[in-house]
């Protein structure tokens, strides 16, 4: 576990860079992590991030399929928004733990 200052806020991350305390997240932090990943966040990105955070808070196990059925984006669009590992990247940017689903 490490502490890192992102967008002026000290946040706790695990070894793989995922938030250990999702409460510390805000939109500015998300933008900065996304920039590290080479992604510039737009409204659609934020809709996905908020969906993920909401479902995480409800205790759901997240999967690409669930995001695809959310009505926000289809799976292909999700891959375009977060290229090269959509669920993991979006989860990291959304400040929630690493997804544990295999599908």
């Amino acid at each position: 576990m490490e502490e890192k200052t992102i967008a002026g806020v000290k946040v706790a991350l695990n070894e793989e860079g995922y938030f250990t305390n999702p409460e510390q997240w805000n939109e500015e932090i998300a933008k900065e992590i996304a920039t590290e990943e080479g992604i510039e966040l737009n409204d659609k990105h934020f809709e996905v991030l908020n969906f993920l955070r909401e479902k995480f808070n409800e205790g759901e196990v997240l999967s690409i399929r669930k995001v695809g059925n959310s009505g926000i984006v289809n799976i292909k669009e999700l891959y375009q928004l977060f290229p090269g590992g959509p669920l993991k990247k979006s989860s990291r940017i959304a400040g929630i733990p690493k997804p544990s689903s295999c599908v």
Partner: protein
Amino acid sequence: MTIKKEENPLKKVCVICAKGSIEDVYATLVMANGAVMEGIEAKVFFTFFGLDAITKNRMKKLKTATLGNPAMRMPGGLPFPSLLGVLPGVEAGVSLMMKKGMEKLDIPPVEEFLEMIIAGGGEIYACKMAAEMFKLEKKDLWDEVIDIITVGDFYAMCGGENTQIIFT
């Protein structure tokens, strides 16, 4: 557990599916989809009975073998008597239970799973020899199948650094 990351990561998987039971096909689909989810390129080659998974009139009707399957269990975990497997309807019932169990785990039906792989940039191919053997043409196969190709064509796609071939 902390997963130790390989410094020199996997870039491409080529998955071969040669069997047509639910669990064999899903092994392929899970491995291929798992790859694209991680940003790893995936190419999938369906051959022999595996072709059922991408044949229009069969892909929705895959079954689990209730005969000759020593790992079969009754609900609750008791051994599944082999003789039960021969009764009419048992294979269909068991297959339906498998499908329901997977749906509960958010594992999609075959066609939707294939669509997920394609959405992630994965590519689906059919084996020429097996297609000829089963008298299948491109029109009999799922529309998103890129082509019917030879083993040599498939191997030609499987080159490159950090590529693995997976046979399920």
